[in-house]
């Protein structure tokens, strides 16, 4: 966390976060290679996303990772606070 710029809630760009659709993900690992700052591999090769908004300086790479995922399993979505809330945040594919 320490090397990242401070989170600015007023800027809507900062409210985007990466999510994996775990049903679609086949552990190709493209995202892990493209974006090691935010995505690491678990013992089985599946991506682990660092929680929190995507920092502005990594946003272009994040969009690239989303676009290059062979199974379209990586999503850039509006930030969700609680996953139980039905009335908020619609994920959308970017790039």
């Amino acid at each position, binding site marked *: 966390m320490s090397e990242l710029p401070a989170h600015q809630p007023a800027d809507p760009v900062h409210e985007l976060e990466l999510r994996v659709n775990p*049903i679609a993900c086949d552990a190709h690992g493209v995202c892990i290679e493209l974006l090691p700052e935010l995505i690491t591999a678990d013992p089985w090769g599946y991506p682990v996303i660092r929680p929190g908004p995507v920092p502005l300086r990594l946003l272009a790479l994040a969009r690239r990772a989303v676009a290059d995922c062979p199974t379209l399993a990586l999503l850039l979505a509006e930030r969700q606070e609680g996953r139980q809330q039905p009335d908020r945040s619609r994920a959308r594919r970017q790039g």
Partner: protein
Amino acid sequence: MNLAAHRKHYGPVPLLAAGSDALITEVERAGLTGRGGATFSTGRKLRAVATANAGRGARVVVANGSESEPASSKDAVLLARSPHLVLDGIQLCAAAVGASRGYLCLGSRSPAARSVREAFAERDRAGLGGVPIEVVDAAADGYLAGQETALVSLLNGGRAVPAFVPPRPSDRGVRRQPTLVLNVETLAQVALIARYGATWFRSVGADDAPGSALVTVTGGVSRPGVREIPLGTPLGEVLRRSGLAAPAQAVLTGGYFGTWLPLPDAFRVPMSAPGLRAAGATFGAGVLAVLPASSCGLAETARVAGYLASQIADQCGPCRNGMPALAEAMNWIAFGRPDADIIGWARQLTGLITGRGACHLPDGAAVLARSALAVFSADLRAHATAGPCGRAQVAATLPIPPRSHR
């Protein structure tokens, strides 16, 4: 309770114009939360479905009585005793969100299925109107069938396995229509709130958890079964009323996705979502499974972990890999002589599977395993130095469904 007795006891269902906001507002004021396990605000769920697609188009109501949680029997008891309350709830919610059809999903307990069939016949004979309700058997579909998106998938003709959200069922569910999925007890509570109002509902229970709830008490008690409690009742009082057979060492709260709490320390914990949350546990589906001192909590947990691993949908990589690994590690811990590596691996696995599936099954298994390693830490040390305790071979306290029911 048959229809005549039901009407005499509860009075008529208040008439509700289709799309009326009155019931949703009343449910919001009541502060009712879902009784299926997630304890989510029912009022917000109703409103989400009512306002989806700008309030236009068809909608669906799904009553979830699948009760796939093995230690729970409250939904079957409710459906067997008061089916009309649940059916009233379906009709009221259908009117409130503007739904044109309903489904009632049932589990494997036949007494409930019979009383539900009789209730439908009675309503037909009495000429009670309302939207058509189809009864669906979700029994054969295992632990995950009770999950909201899994039910939607089943009703859409697919396997009863969870889906990735979004879209949420409230936006796009059965036949791609906004779909309200509520537990059958939640629907019965809605039927009561519609009759007697939010103030009546809030007159029992706690300020932060109003109303009453059905709980299933099982395991080391002399009077196991389902009872209705005001929310916030101290856990010890619920167990005492169920005939707590001393000495007990711990209680599993919530369900098989739940948390062990040590006894007697947990006696004062209020039985409510906020009360249990403060104690690091969950209300879940209202399960209290008492572990006698003669049982081994690690062995009980290992059996449940094995059961949960057998129930995965096989859709998500972290779960497909992590759940069998966790079950195996817990098995070593319970029935072998675990070294620091295997204990560390079990702990690491609970982190690796959390929040990484389409559904919360792996999250729940992780919570259960972590709480077992903490609450039964003395047993863990004993197993590590001397191998499994004799109690590991004691007959299981927590019921594991037979293979045919999986």
